[in-house]
Each structure stands twice: as structure tokens, then as C-alpha cells.
């Protein structure tokens, strides 16, 4: 009797487990198919968008009338952004697919810049037409290669989930057809990237002035170490690890770090000139004793003792729990230089500076000829949306969309409950930028 009931129980258990297992298996498959379908959609969208892109660029080249050109370029811009989005959804991050992405980016930049321009006044130059032609060629090749891959995927029922797996188990990488296909696409583009596309024309590098302040003189690691100690506020006893940056760094640095008790510190000093680039000190910040205002004054004092200009204007101040974070920009004759911003962080328990970032400052700082304003303040004010109640204004140098520095009138104004910052070009009165300033966010 006992034996039979045991057998029955066990068989029920076995059947139960297999039913459960089957269901799990089904579910897993369903999810895999879902994920696979997502990848497939992105991939086919990508090839479709590149097809379309190629055609559109082709017809742009054939176009003559300016009225049609702008919308066409806007359409190209939209397509590149969509293609880009599709690439982002494929598991290609660790694959060398960045040249193709760069192409998309260049295409997008080019079409954006030309689409927003008044082509009646400033038609496409010969150089630009040439650039467009070479972009057309590249897009044609990418389209072809991708079509080949797409064809293989469809004929052989290739699955993106296998790419995923192949990438996980790196050793099989060479065998995967999709991966091979994408590598071929990449190689095709690589040929173009250097020679044919005039990089300066495409505006890929958003115009960096490139650390002009640093000079050529190298500081030794010892000197840098000394400076680090003083900035990190540590004595000779404390160990500090210093390393130099590798070839990928756009400016060579010494990086120092130390760890003592509850405090860690990290600092970057430029090898040329020995300027501090970033400083970070991390420690527990106790209860607040200092006001944000005192903290700001501390920050100002601190910066004036470093290698930066002393005349600083406060752009932003924020309290995050027990630390204050400030952004300063230099000020010359009441003109605020926004590109040379410095961020600084102060602990509100004892007013100590916990860190700063001078990257923007070091990168952009140079002797500036500040041009004369061509518009009076009143004239510029007229260009601001009349619904806005202007509360404050000053002159400032900012970078526009193209990364060029322009002199602007900056207006701070309110519209209902919101505050906006409006930048009006001081020489031609155009609206360079409008920023809505953030409001505090409700705690949830």
C-alpha cells in the first residue's frame, strides 16, 4: 500500500515538474524570440534607412532649386538620426562599427548645418558640393555592404541572438557571419574617413581651442607631485600614487590619487605647464554649519589663489544636501566669458573646498579680442520675445551651435513661473540661444 502511494506521488511529482519545465522552456523561447525580433527590426530598419539616405543624398545632388534643398537636407538629417538610433539598438557596442557611426554623424552634421542656413543668401559652396558627393559615395558603399549582410541574414536565417552569444564567448567571434559582415562594412568606410572627407568642413571636431594656455614647458613628475600634495592638502608622509596618461588622452596629464582613513583624493595635473585640471576629495560631510553664501566666498578665495583669473562671476550656485556646487566664469570689463567656466565644490560642514574642474577654462582660455558691440542694449532688448519680462542682463561671450565664440547680450527673463536665459548676438541681433532655467524638482 505504502509502496503504491509512494509511486503515485512520485509520478505526479515527475509529471508536475515536466509540465512546469516545459512551460518555463516555452516562456524562455517566447522571450528569446521577442528579443530576437527587436534586434531584427532594428537591423532591417537600419538598412532601410540607409537605402533611403543614399537615395536622398543622390537627389539632393541633382537638385537645383533652393526651395527644395532645405527640406531635403532636413530630411537627410532626420534619416541619419533614425539610422543612428537603429545602430544604438543593436548589440554592436564592442564591435568595430564606429567608423560607420562616424559617417552617420558627419552626414548629420553636414545636413543640419546646411539645412538651417539661409541657402538663398549663402548657397552651397563648391567645397560643400564636393563633400556631399563623397558622402554620397560612402553611403552607397555602406548601403551595398549592409544589403549583402541583410541578404545573408534572410537567406540563412541568421539570428542576432547568436551574435550576442558569439560576442559573449569571444573565441567564436571570427565565425559569425553577421559580425564578419559588419566588419566588412567598417573596412569599406575606413578607406574614406581619412582622405576624402574634408574633416574641417564637416565640423566634426566642435572646434577646440586646444589648451593654448598650457605652453610647451613640461613639468617633472616630482614637481607635479609637490603641487598635488599642496592641492590635496596632504603632507609628505601620505603616500600618493602618480601615473601618466596614455596615448588616448587629448592632453597629457599626471594623475595622482591617495587614500587615508575615510578620505580619498584624486587630482589631474597637466604635464605641460603643470596646471591643475580636476581635483576631487571625497569624505563624509557632516552636518551643515556654513551657509551657501560663505561657501561661495570660500570658493572664490580658493580660486583666486590658484592659477586662474581672479575676476570671476557666479553663474550657478546649488546646494546638494551638505555640499555647495558653484559655477564661475571669468569676467573682463563686465563681459562674462562662458566658455572658460570653472566648477567648484565646497563642503558645508567646515567650508573646505572638496574639488574643482578647470577643464573648460584650461581648454578654452586664450587672450581674447572682445569686439565692440554693434547693437545697443535697447536694440537687442527689442529682439527678445515681448511676452518675456526681462529682469537682468549682462554681456557675455558664448559658443554658438557651430562652436564659434560670439559676443551676446544675455537676458534673464520670466514668463509666467519660468525663468529663461536668452542670448542675443550683439553684432547682428539674432537669437543665438534660449535656455529654460531649471526649477527645483519636487521630492517624490
Amino acid at each position, binding site marked *: 500500500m505504502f509502496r503504491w502511494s509512494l509511486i503515485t506521488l512520485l509520478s505526479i511529482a515527475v509529471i508536475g515538474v515536466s509540465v512546469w519545465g516545459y512551460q518555463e522552456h516555452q516562456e524562455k523561447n517566447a522571450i528569446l524570440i521577442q528579443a530576437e525580433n527587436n534586434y531584427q527590426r532594428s537591423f532591417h530598419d537600419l538598412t532601410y534607412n540607409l537605402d533611403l539616405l543614399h537615395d536622398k543624398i543622390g537627389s539632393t545632388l541633382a537638385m537645383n532649386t533652393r526651395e527644395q534643398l532645405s527640406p531635403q537636407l532636413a530630411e537627410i538629417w532626420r534619416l541619419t538620426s533614425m539610422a543612428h538610433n537603429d545602430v544604438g539598438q543593436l548589440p554592436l557596442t564592442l564591435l568595430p562599427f564606429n567608423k560607420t557611426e562616424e559617417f552617420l554623424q558627419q552626414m548629420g552634421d553636414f545636413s543640419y548645418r546646411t539645412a538651417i542656413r539661409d541657402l538663398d543668401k549663402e548657397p552651397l559652396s563648391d567645397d560643400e558640393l564636393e563633400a556631399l558627393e563623397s558622402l554620397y559615395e560612402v553611403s552607397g558603399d555602406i548601403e551595398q555592404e549592409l544589403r549583402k549582410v541583410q541578404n545573408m541574414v534572410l537567406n540563412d536565417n541568421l539570428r542576432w541572438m547568436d551574435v550576442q552569444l558569439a560576442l559573449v564567448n569571444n573565441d567564436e567571434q571570427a565565425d559569425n557571419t553577421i559580425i564578419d559582415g559588419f566588419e566588412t562594412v567598417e573596412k569599406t568606410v575606413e578607406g574614406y574617413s581619412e582622405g576624402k572627407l574634408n574633416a574641417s568642413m564637416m565640423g566634426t571636431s566642435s572646434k577646440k581651442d586646444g589648451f593654448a594656455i598650457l605652453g610647451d614647458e613640461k613639468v617633472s613628475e616630482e614637481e607635479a607631485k609637490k603641487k598635488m600634495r599642496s592641492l590635496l592638502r596632504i603632507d609628505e608622509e601620505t603616500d600618493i600614487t602618480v601615473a601618466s*596618461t596614455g596615448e588616448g588622452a587629448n592632453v597629457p596629464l599626471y594623475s595622482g590619487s591617495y587614500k587615508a582613513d575615510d578620505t580619498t583624493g584624486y587630482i589631474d595635473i597637466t604635464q605641460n605647464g603643470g596646471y591643475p585640471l580636476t581635483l576631487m576629495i571625497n569624505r563624509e560631510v557632516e552636518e551643515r554649519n556654513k*551657509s*551657501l*553664501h560663505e561657501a561661495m566666498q570660500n570658493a572664490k578665495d580658493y580660486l583666486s589663489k590658484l592659477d586662474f583669473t581672479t575676476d570671476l562671476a557666479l553663474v550657478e550656485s546649488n*546646494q546638494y544636501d551638505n555640499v555647495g556646487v558653484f559655477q564661475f566664469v571669468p569676467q573682463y570689463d563686465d563681459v562674462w566669458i562662458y566658455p572658460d567656466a570653472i566648477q567648484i565644490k565646497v563642503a558645508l560642514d567646515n567650508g573646505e573646498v572638496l574639488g574643482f574642474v578647470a577643464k573648460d577654462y584650461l581648454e578654452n582660455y586664450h587672450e581674447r579680442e572682445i569686439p565692440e558691440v554693434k547693437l545697443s542694449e535697447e536694440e537687442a532688448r527689442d529682439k527678445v520675445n515681448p511676452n518675456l519680462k526681462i529682469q537682468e542682463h549682462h554681456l557675455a561671450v558664448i559658443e554658438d551651435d557651430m562652436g564659434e565664440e560670439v559676443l551676446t547680450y544675455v537676458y534673464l527673463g520670466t514668463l509666467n513661473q519660468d*525663468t529663461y536665459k536668452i542670448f542675443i548676438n550683439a553684432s547682428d541681433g539674432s537669437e543665438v540661444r534660449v535656455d529654460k532655467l531649471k526649477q527645483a524638482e519636487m521630492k517624490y
Partner: protein
Amino acid sequence: MKKKITICLIIFAISSFFFIDGKNDQVHGFSNQVIQHGATGDDVIELQARLQYLGFYNGDIDGVFGWGTYWALRNFQYEFGMEIDGLAGQAVKQKLEDASEFDKAYVHEQIQQGKKFTHYGGVDKEKQTEPSPTKQKEGDGGQQGSNQQQENQQAQPENNQPQATEEDLEPTAVNIPQGFSQNDIQIMANAVYGEARGEPYEGQVAVASVILNRVESSTFPNTVSGVIFEPRAFTAVSDGQIWLTPNERARNAVLDAINGWDPTGEALYYFNPDTATSGWIWSRPQIKRIGKHVFCM
């Protein structure tokens, strides 16, 4: 100018003695700090409430000195003939205290109960708040009476220190860096914690910076979530470690990164040289090593 202020101060001091008659704790409502844009806390709540009482401030009384408060304060300074600098220093606070009422008990009770409320002068407080679900607010009758009466009514709760007037009330809002939301920060903190919880602090800031550099870069998706959830971009996302609860340190690291700290030198990739499987990643130009991770372009 200075003389003018002094005279004003004297007049107000006299008149306030006359009015308030010895209730000096009223004047010491504010702490000694100079309150400036971006500050948070109790003093800001009082500042906003007082500005609202006078009709300068129409936003929420949330304890964060944002732009709304800033303009309100400047308008107040303008109307009262003071130097317009948007800072609430001693003179400003004094003047505010003299010109307005601050029903601390009422304001704090509203904030603690999480109600939507206002604090305008000369309006019945019952009408300035949502009805209480449990019981109607007691002991806070008509506001329409003369100043003298209000003073008396207010004196009671202030001296008794009812529970609603506990010091150091938390503001109901927080400062968030421009262009981000609390949720963005949360999701980044998740990713940073999942990816680099064993790393030194600068290593965590570095990982957060890479996420932000990718958002900036035109070859990656343009949103924080787009970058984080890009397939195969982050191992913590693939293996689900992103859903661990991040600690405060990870969150601070994210905040630092958003505020501009980038120890990586604009890196777009990073990998752990001990576990990296992709040969391609080694071919990227390397920038530096922080903790266990190598950062590269």
C-alpha cells in the same frame, strides 16, 4: 546708502518694539546665514513664506531657493528701496520680518502633511490649504484681524513649540543639475553601482562620466537611458546587476560627474583588463587607468 539703511533699521527696530512688544524670538526666526540662490533648508522656507505673505512670491513654498524666489526677493528689494542683489542678508531679513508674518506652525504642519498650500497675507488660512482628510486644522482662525491680533495668536504656538514646528524641516524639493531629473540620476546611480561598486570613488565618477560622454558623443544614443540600455554596452545591464539598490556614494559620484567632474579625460569606453573578452577594445587609444578599469577613447 549706508546711512539710509541705518535710519531705516532704527525706525523699524523702534516700530517693531512698539508692535511686537518684547516678542524678540520672532526676529530671530531666520538663522544668521546670508541666503543665496541655490540654498535649501528651513531659512529658505521662511524666506519664501514671508515673500509670499507680501505677495512677491507665487511659487510653491518648497525650501529651495530657485529662480522664482530669486526674482521675488529682488522685487522685494526694489520695492523697499534696498540694494538689489538677490541675497537675503541681515538687513533684508530684518525688513522682511518687520513687514510680514510667518506662521511657522501652520507652514510646517502643511509641509509635514505634504499638502499643497499657500501663505498669502490677509487671506483665511483655511482657504489656502487642501482640506485635511482626518481633522480640520484647529487653532488657526481668522487672519483678517489686525496685525496686533495675529501676533497674539501666533505667539501661542511659537512658545509652546508644538510638534509641527520641529526644527530643520526637510525641504519638499531638491536641486537638480540643469538638463537632468532625479530619475536620470537614479538610473545612472544604478548603472554605476552595478558596474563599479568595488571601485574607488573616482572610479565611480569615471564610469558615470563615460555614460555622460557617450550621451554627448554623436556616435552613441542621445539619452542617459539610451546609452545605459544599449545592448551589450554595460555588463551590469546584461547580467541584471543594474537592479541592485545603489548606495549614497554611487549617487554622489553621479552627481559629481553631472556637475562636470570627469576624471577620465573624455573617455568613451572602459574595460577591465583582467576580464575583457573583446580584442578590439585593446586597440582603442588608452587614456588612463583608474582602479580596475582602463579608460580609452
